[in-house]
């Protein structure tokens, strides 16, 4: 059931960011919506529940994107590992820290993307564009990231409650 929930959410996010968001200019500089979901998985779910979803949607995003194959997979795995590592010494569940965790995640993703382009396409000129894109994405992440995390958490809790209700009724 949890897997179904995760896959459903991820499909909605992928569809939203590839089909709906391009119609609105305001979302031009928006960050990858799967990043907050990966952060949510690493904060609230076990390795067994998270890794298959992360690998599968990393693969899906790599197939849909024009970047080198494995780039999204790399980004999501390192993001997951990074957040797991951070929670060992920082209480990230605190709502005050959530915006910064999402922003850091988005920053990490952009660093990996820029690093990959710079490594495989030497001579690419994108410094000024890169700075503005990353800044806009990080700002979006600070303000909207926690909302997504809370939404994922709320939806999952609702689903759990509904599942418990159904099973109690049946028994």
């Amino acid at each position, binding site marked *: 059931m949890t897997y179904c929930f995760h896959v459903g959410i991820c*499909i909605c996010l*992928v*569809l939203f*960011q*590839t*089909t*709906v*968001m*391009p*119609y609105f*200019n305001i979302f*031009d*500089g928006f960050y*990858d*919506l799967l990043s907050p979901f990966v952060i949510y998985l690493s904060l609230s779910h076990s390795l067994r529940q998270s890794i298959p979803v992360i690998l599968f949607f990393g*693969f*899906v*995003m*790599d*197939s*849909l*994107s*024009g*970047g*080198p*194959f*494995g*780039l999204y997979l*790399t980004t999501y795995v*390192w993001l997951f590992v990074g957040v797991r590592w951070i929670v060992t010494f920082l209480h990230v569940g605190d709502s005050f820290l959530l915006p910064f965790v999402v922003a850091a995640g988005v920053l990490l993703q*952009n660093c990996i*993307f*820029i690093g*990959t*382009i710079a*490594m*495989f*396409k030497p001579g*690419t*000129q*994108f410094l000024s*564009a890169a700075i503005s*894109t990353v800044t806009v*994405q990080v700002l979006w992440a600070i303000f909207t990231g926690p909302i997504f995390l809370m939404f994922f958490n709320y939806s999952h809790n609702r689903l759990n409650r509904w599942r418990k209700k159904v099973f109690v009724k049946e028994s």
Partner: protein
Amino acid sequence: MVMIIGVIVLIAVNIILLSVSNRYYQSYGPGRIAISLIAPFQEAVSRSIRFVKDIWVHYFFLVETAKENDIYKKALSHAVEKDNLHKELKLSNNRLRSLLNFQKTITDEVISAEVIGKDSSPWFNTIMIDKGKHDGVKKGAAVVIPEGIVGQVAEVSTNYSKILLIIDHNSAVDALVQRTRARGIIKGASSDRCLFKYVLRKKGVAVGDTVVSSGLDGVFLKGLPVGRVSGVIRPNSGIFQEVSVTPYVDFEKLEEVLVVLNPKKDKFQSEQ
């Protein structure tokens, strides 16, 4: 200490794997499966959005339409004037063609496709279209619209294809300046700009010049509009000048494209 070494080793392995996939990855199976899985949903959502948008534009947004109508009326009167001029030019062109015994321009077979999804990352510029192998689309085929070159097919699944736009870092189009015939390579630079690279310093390029495809890359037909020169920097040293080009195609508003199914290259080879 062991953990730090482990992380460094993992990063190194990761970079090597990315490098290998960047150079040698050819998507034949799994990539296509993922596209086939997600693309139908993208198609459904895109169609729904367009349906709602059409209702909004045709029924609720008529104030703006009335204003546009006035603008179009003015534009039409100018167009009629230009049309007369073009008719004259067409007639003289036909006369000259027949005079020089030019071969009739081969009209390539094209197929129209709808854009059903866009790359979510600002670092890469690709789109998904609703035509694939079943419709005759092949990897490497040129994708155009009347305004100019859009890109080329990067990946084909049964019913859907991924298009690499000319504004992507990985894209390269052999092109020339229409006015002076200065040749170079159009490379993607950002979401609204391309770089016209390897143009010799001594060649004349000016802001406002039109850049067209040269046809030498074997993908795009000769003479297709690419964009307008928006900036020229001639450094004191070096053999090339730095030219930036603004594409004619508005990639933000791209909804339908044409895929060239039988590029001239194939015809040329079969004629040999």
